């Protein structure tokens, strides 16, 4: 069997899902037998390349995220919505109930911990969209791994199935657990 390629990315998320990915510990070696991780925030690499499997953490919360997920969808054979933010918006989407400016003001101007009392305004900083969307509202998704974060066992199960050309079924490991 030809060795597969995996790419991972985080959008509007906290990187917790990636931490949980690292928690698969020594089982990472089994994954690496079957696939190379060619792009990830935890390895190096610039543009998202063509991959067999893309694990996408986080929701779509800015124009840049939108561009990125569209790009990934075009490059990846399988897109996995990875973690609650990607699956349902989760904490990232809680600002949907508020106006973007209110959120920024509370975080930067009113927050006691911020001495500058200024909303940062540099070109390289992401521009927040007024609504946060889970991934499937923006592109077609092949598989979902809910969880905040998903457990390492769940992540390994799904990866292992996909790498062995099987269809993962979360019911086998007790069903999809949100939160």
């Amino acid at each position, binding site marked *: 069997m030809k060795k597969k390629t995996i790419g991972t990315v985080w959008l509007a998320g906290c990187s917790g899902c990636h931490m949980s990915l690292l928690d698969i510990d020594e089982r990472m070696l089994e994954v690496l037998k079957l696939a190379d991780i060619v792009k990830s925030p935890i390895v190096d690499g610039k543009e998202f390349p063509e991959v067999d499997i893309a694990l996408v953490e986080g929701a779509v919360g800015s*124009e840049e995220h*939108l561009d990125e997920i*569209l790009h990934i969808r075009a490059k990846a054979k399988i897109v996995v919505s990875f973690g609650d933010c990607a699956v349902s918006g989760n904490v990232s989407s809680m600002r949907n109930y508020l106006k973007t400016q209110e959120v920024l003001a509370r975080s930067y101007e009113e927050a006691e911990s911020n001495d500058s009392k200024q909303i940062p305004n540099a070109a390289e900083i992401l521009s927040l*969209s*007024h*609504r946060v*969307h889970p991934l499937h509202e*923006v592109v077609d998704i092949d598989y979902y791994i809910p969880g905040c974060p998903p457990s390492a066992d769940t992540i390994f199960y799904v990866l292992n199935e996909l790498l062995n050309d099987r269809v993962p079924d979360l019911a086998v490991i007790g069903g999809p657990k949100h939160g």
Partner: protein
Amino acid sequence: MSREDLKQMAQRIQDDKKKYAYTIFACNASGCIPSGSEAVFEALKNCVKDRKLEDQVRVVSCGCMGICAQGPIVRVDPDQSIYQKVTVENAHRIIDEHIIGKTPVKDMLLFSHEKEPLINSFEETFFKKQKRVVLRNCGRIDPQSIDDYIAEGGYQALEKVLKRMGPEEVIAEVKHSRLRGRGGAGYPTGLKWEVVYKYVSDKKFVVCNADEGDPGAFMDRSVIEGDPHRVLEGMIIAAYAVGAQKGYVYIRGEYATAIKPLETAIKQAKKNGFLGETIMGTTFKFDIEIRIGAGAFVCGEQTALIASIEGRRGTPRPRPPYPAEKGLWGYPTLINNVETFANISAIIVHGGEWFCETGTTKSTGTKVFSLAGKVKNTGLIEVPMGISLREIVYDIGGGILDDREFKAAQTGGPSGGCISKEYLDRPVDYESLVELGSIMGSGGLIVMDDTSDMVDVARFFMEFCMDESCGKCVPCRVGTKQMFDLLNKIYIGRGTMADLKVLEELAIFVKEASLCGLGMSAPNPLLSSLRFFKEDFLQHIQRNEKVVKPLI
């Protein structure tokens, strides 16, 4: 009171009326009131007084004659001349020219039953294909006068039932007529009565459902406004048949113009011994109370209606148990619609066999429709079951306004569907309409022309159902909101094919998983629009084709 007494009474009242050379019927139903009919009625009365004709001319404020768009309508009997758009200014001409001068006022005539002058072909069209059973007295008697009703043979059915028929015979006769519930679902009325009759209970109730909540429907109101005693008589007969002691009329709060005549009618019926302790001298007792609804479409649903009469939030509960077993305060309860009750006296008097002569095998009798929307002759009509939509729209309705193209006919209101022009020749009966994804409903019939956007229409009805959902069960509460949001998204041009798919899936889910009739039928307008007018949806979506995925 015996049969002879009643007949004599009818004769006496008729004789009384004969002393008048003319009777002027001024329509004062809610279709004509907005056109100023109340003032016209006063003007006519004053004019008769002025000309000192009170002994010869009787001016009657009456119920709907059906031709609402041409109102205010005034009819002069015995000539049967119908005047349209009568105003306070020209009302005197009817007295001066027609009654004193003996020449009908040609330029005000809608049409005349005398062969000439036939001003237009109204007679040949609007009335020719109608058959009036329920509306027989509507516009022909003074609804505030029990004498008028008795003179037309009223309460003779009740007399027959009380004196010469047992409850089982009454039920057999109704079963024989194959009358089906006129409220929408079309459940056989006789069977319903039989079920309530068979439950043994020391208390039973009869409820008349006059919570006509469909937007675009005003049949029940017109019947109550125009001939309230007919409805009461039907209820009293039903009470006798099922063994009930107490009845309620649950009527919309918006129907102030119908509540009044109904109150008067109940008072009169009590005074004349048709309601109360010893009805018509027998041991049968029955009383009717009015309960005024407060604006909730869902209260047309039987179990919600019961909750509302009991003074609670009008939320339905799962059936079984059916109201026939456990209804008001847990007692067996018969609930029928206004029009259903209004059919009863005719069935008793003429027999079930006679009733079956009209209509189709499975849908017997007539149906009252309120014809509205983009047709020339809007108004209240009563047609034999099985008539084609084309006959209703083109013959009775006179065709589409401005001679535009017919696009759809909507029946059954928010629970029904839109029927496209391919099916104009299908008969209008319970089964055919269901086949076409619509329902008979209570009888609203709205005609749409080619300027109507069916996505907008579907959205309109979905918004209605969403607002009117009682919020109890999950599929209806959340599903109607989701479907409305999706329809809105498609309507404003941001929808995708994926949205359309989810929309269809949701529609079937809400239809099958909801608790009550409201939820089960809420997707009907959408599903029928998707079935017959998918093009309209695709057009909206294609506008969005270039955008990959929507909105950030």
